[in-house]
């Protein structure tokens, strides 16, 4: 029995599919919607300018909008739960967080996928590597929050496309109940008693904290932001010694004790502390004495946001005093740390959660070129040097 229809249908559909795919892949290459990046940014900026210049004006307009779409802000990351709660309470605006575990790439994908829709994420919190990509795609609004001048140069984009509202330092967290001998430096971690216990949060080719660990290790072993090879060699050695454990640092794994020593941002630990203490664990966080790496995340209002004023209000909240105190509670260092210090808003209690003041003062961030170079080196070499061993 002949099936001429099928014989015709399949090639026809295939041709149609090819045509569709070619058209859509062409238009989605830069990831932006039909308008060119500059013009969409211009129209957005125009819309945004109507939001006002003082917090009160912006808050009023935002209240009318009623909602701001957030993404990639887990509750226990730098106390975002507390910061969001304080925002909702103060301004009466909804702030739902979609996909809290989203990576920076996921955030950009979400903006691309939901462009023009009422659900589109309106404020991004992305790793510094992704700022260029987001800018090129036309996603970043040039909006300078009210306290712009109080934010240090290294934590903002000249053109107002991003601010680094918080940063953290890479620290060594030890479950002192399982491992009473708490390591205090990168050199310490090589000791044989830590066999199978040292864990980094993810893979450096994918996770910001793991990347930071490699760079920090480089700093501690004679390298620099321009040369992170010593960091790779350090971890290769750690793996060879059997000290490096390759399991993922999930909350459950830390809580069960599977991860006795975790290398992660300082602000990732306070959220876990209550559960750990309830379990009876003695949990100690130490900033390694020989290699200090400070890393920030970039926040930015997204162009063509469905709720532009609310989005701007959120950004202002992050860099405001309340936002800063929220970050401090979570163990992160706010961008306006110096300003807050002057105002005397940093109490003893809060300071106890943070690395010592000298360490904070000494933190320097790598430039975009240095990050790119380190990225390339790690991407190429981590596999053969560390993962394959």
């Amino acid at each position, binding site marked *: 029995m002949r099936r001429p*229809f099928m014989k015709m*249908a399949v090639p026809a559909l295939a041709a149609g*599919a090819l045509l*569709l*795919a070619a058209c859509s892949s062409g238009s989605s290459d830069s990831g932006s919607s039909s308008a060119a990046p500059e013009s969409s940014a211009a129209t957005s900026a125009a819309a945004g300018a109507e939001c006002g210049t003082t917090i009160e004006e912006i808050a009023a307009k935002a209240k009318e909008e009623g909602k701001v779409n957030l993404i990639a802000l887990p509750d226990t990351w730098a106390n975002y739960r507390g910061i969001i709660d304080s925002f909702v309470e103060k301004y009466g605006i909804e702030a739902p967080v979609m996909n809290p575990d989203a990576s920076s790439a996921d955030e950009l994908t979400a903006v691309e996928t939901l462009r023009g829709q009422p659900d589109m994420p309106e404020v991004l919190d992305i790793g510094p590597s992704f700022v260029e990509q987001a800018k090129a795609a036309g996603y970043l609004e040039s909006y300078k929050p009210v306290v712009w001048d109080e934010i240090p140069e290294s934590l903002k984009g000249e053109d107002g496309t991003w601010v680094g509202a918080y940063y953290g330092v890479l620290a060594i967290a030890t479950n002192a109940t399982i491992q009473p001998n708490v390591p205090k430096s990168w050199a310490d971690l090589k000791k044989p008693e830590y066999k199978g216990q040292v864990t980094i949060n993810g893979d450096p080719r*994918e996770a910001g904290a793991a990347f930071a660990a490699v760079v920090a290790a480089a700093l501690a072993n004679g390298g620099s932001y321009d040369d992170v090879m010593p960091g790779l060699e350090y971890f290769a050695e750690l793996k060879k010694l059997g000290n490096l454990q*390759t399991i993922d640092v999930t909350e459950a794994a830390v809580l069960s*004790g599977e991860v006795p020593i975790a290398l992660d941002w300082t602000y990732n630990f306070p959220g876990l502390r209550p559960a750990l203490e309830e379990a009876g664990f003695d949990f100690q966080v130490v900033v390694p004495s020989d290699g200090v790496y400070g890393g920030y995340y970039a926040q930015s209002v997204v162009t063509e946001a469905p709720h532009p004023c609310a989005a701007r209000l959120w950004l202002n909240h992050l860099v405001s005093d309340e936002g800063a105190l929220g970050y401090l509670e979570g163990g992160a260092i706010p961008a306006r740390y110096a300003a807050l210090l002057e105002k005397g808003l940093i109490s003893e209690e809060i300071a106890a959660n943070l690395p010592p003041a000298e360490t904070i003062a000494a933190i320097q961030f790598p430039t975009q070129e240095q990050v790119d170079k380190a*990225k390339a080196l790690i991407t190429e070499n981590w596999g053969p040097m560390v993962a394959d061993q």
Partner: protein
Amino acid sequence: MRRRFDTATVVVAVPFLAFVGLFLFVPTIGLAIKAFTPGGSFGFSAMQRALEGTYRTAFINSLSLAVTSSLLGGVLGLLLALSLKSLTRPKWLRSTTDSWSAVAAQLGGIPLAFAFIAAIGTQGLITKLLSLVGVDIADSGFSLSEFWGLVVVYLYFQIPLMFLVMMPAVGGLKSTWGEAAAIMGSSPGRYWRSVALPLLVPSFLGGLLLLFVNSFAAYATAYVLNPGAQLVPLQIRFLLQGNVITGEQDLAYAIVLWTISLLLISLLLIAVLQRRTAKWASS
């Protein structure tokens, strides 16, 4: 009278083809195009890079993990199906296994990985119990993050999957045939070779393919146990969904394209094997 454009065929085929075309073919062709146009212009650099260095290692690792977990899971799943077929008591065992398999076959990610961590991780319950008796799992070199650890965890969903695949075929093995064969004087081995196996092998091969694809593409579980493992799905994630690497989407799509080729090759292999065994069965 021969109807060339049967209404039924049209009504049936078009929605399915349209659905699959829109949601599967278009994205796949789109990514294939991107894989062959790295950086905007036609070229093979992305396809080539996808087979070199760390990506080649990932392919080999994923392949061995998939083959191992599929073969082991396949055999164990088949044995499970056979065992349960001949068992009539306890009555609840069959339905329990059926229902549990449906759930277990698609388990993965943090719950599955953590269940094993809680059991046989370094701070696992079983690890502790065994250490009280003097057996140290960690010392023997076993680690959930390494190859055999992953295989063990993958088996948790591979075995139920094969069990579900084999049930109809095994169910078709009427127990009376075995008895009849015995009555007529044939040995159990002969029964198996001439009657049972030919019936089971085609489904078994099809099931192996399903398990292979399932395990090759499985990513959530591997990510929790070892985010840095050199495995293809993780590499793709680094490139498409990470926090560090940017601008390497074309490379990722090239890797996907090679994976699709691998799928097609395995499919052809299995199809050939199925045809061979069908011939052998009818001979």
